[in-house]
């Protein structure tokens, strides 16, 4: 409900969000895919962008990367300050635009003017604006940047004038110059603070409404110049180290990996070695547990192997003879009779 106006308030030139007015019936499901606790506005916004650009095959705002940054709330001098850590922007990412998205609503501590009667002359037909004392008509949003691990208040990077909306509303402002200047100076911790804090910005962690639901966020549209380089997908998406520090290398203990896929691959390779070392029939014993060594060939009917599929079907007599052998066999090792072996040796 209250989220809808926020989308239309986003600057279309900066975000390319004209298409966001399209019906998105699956947004709830999509947001749920992010998991509990992540169903905030930034997640929904990113899912919208993803769905839009996946469906239409265009790149968001001519860029190939959109990064979102959630705010971390801190209270300084009884005022809410939102901090953004932009350090995850890569050197290869050329920032095109940056937008600041925030939710504003009239503060509750100021008297609501809905009950104020209109002057008699204007009472008929037209709505009237309340004359009761209220919040200041304009607020200022101050952006400061500071380097990492800095205790200073930060350098003032810019101020935006905001009009307080008559009701709760999501809005967006272009802060490209602020973010670009901060990045140029290597100050990638950005703070946002209202010079007069309405109620929507004062809510702390103990408030009944989840802070993340209305927390402001930043979207950075960038062109990653390294994305066309070889292996770029692995650089950003492959996150596991084949030789993590503190763990033995795979060749020392192939089954000790925490990754089940690695473990499975190692187990497969161990199985592949088995038939070569112990003369077992390849493919027949794939699913048996190590402790199980009984002659239960009938179980292999459940797991047809390539070996069984390609083996020529024996005659009835041979099958009967083989059946007897199977009942008495202690293992699945090929059992050559002595005469055959003697013939072979003579040859």
């Amino acid at each position, binding site marked *: 409900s209250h989220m809808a106006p926020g989308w239309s308030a986003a600057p279309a030139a900066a975000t390319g969000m004209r298409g966001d007015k399209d019906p998105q019936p699956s947004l709830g499901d999509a947001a749920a*895919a992010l998991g509990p606790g992540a169903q905030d506005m930034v997640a929904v916004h990113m899912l919208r962008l993803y769905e839009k650009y*996946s469906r239409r095959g265009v790149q968001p705002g001519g860029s190939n990367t959109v990064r979102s940054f959630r705010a971390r709330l801190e209270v300084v001098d009884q005022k809410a300050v939102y901090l953004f850590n932009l350090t995850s922007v890569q050197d290869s990412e050329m920032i095109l635009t940056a937008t600041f998205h925030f939710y504003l609503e009239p503060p509750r501590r100021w008297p609501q003017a809905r009950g104020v009667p209109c002057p008699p002359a204007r009472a008929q037909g037209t709505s009237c604006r309340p004359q009761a004392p209220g919040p200041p008509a304009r607020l200022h949003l101050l952006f400061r940047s500071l380097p990492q691990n800095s205790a200073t208040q930060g350098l003032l990077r810019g101020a935006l004038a905001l009009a307080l909306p008559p009701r709760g509303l999501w809005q967006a402002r272009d802060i490209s110059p602020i973010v670009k200047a901060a990045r140029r100076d290597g100050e990638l911790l950005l703070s946002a603070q209202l010079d007069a804090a309405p109620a929507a910005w004062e809510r702390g962690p103990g408030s009944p409404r989840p802070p993340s639901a209305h927390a402001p966020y930043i979207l950075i549209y960038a062109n990653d110049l390294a*994305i066309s380089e070889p292996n*770029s997908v692995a650089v950003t998406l492959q996150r596991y180290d084949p030789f993590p520090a503190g763990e033995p290398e795979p060749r020392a203990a192939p089954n000790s990996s925490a990754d089940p896929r690695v473990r499975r691959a190692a187990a497969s390779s161990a199985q592949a070695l088995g038939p070569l070392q112990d003369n077992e029939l390849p493919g027949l014993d794939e699913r048996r547990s190590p402790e199980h060594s009984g002659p239960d060939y009938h179980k292999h009917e459940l797991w047809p192997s390539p070996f069984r599929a390609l083996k020529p079907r024996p005659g009835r007599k041979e099958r009967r003879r083989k059946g007897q052998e199977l009942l008495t066999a202690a293992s699945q090792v090929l059992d050559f009779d002595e005469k055959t072996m003697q013939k072979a040796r003579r040859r």
Partner: protein
Amino acid sequence: QWDEPRVCSRRYLKVDFADIGWNGWIISPKAFDAYYCAGACEFPMPKVVRPSNHATIQSIVRAVGIVPGVPEPCCVPDKMSSLGVLFLDENRNVVLKVYPNMAVETCACR
């Protein structure tokens, strides 16, 4: 895939990110149709395998057999499409990146 043609062509391949262990941070898509190229680039190469001029010459040289060790041209992706991936970065922020050359559209002998 026994019925698939021996000649170089695009084959179906669906990649599930869970299968390569990337599902922990990729939000969407869970899987995508990547396809792959496979098949022979034997002499004479038909137009359907879209041979490059170089591949045509290499194929002839190999067929004539005057230069030992020259292999067949390779069956490789020709046109490819990009894929948008929504994922969580190391700080758990949601990122959308459009990666080029993620899925095969056509194959060719090159």
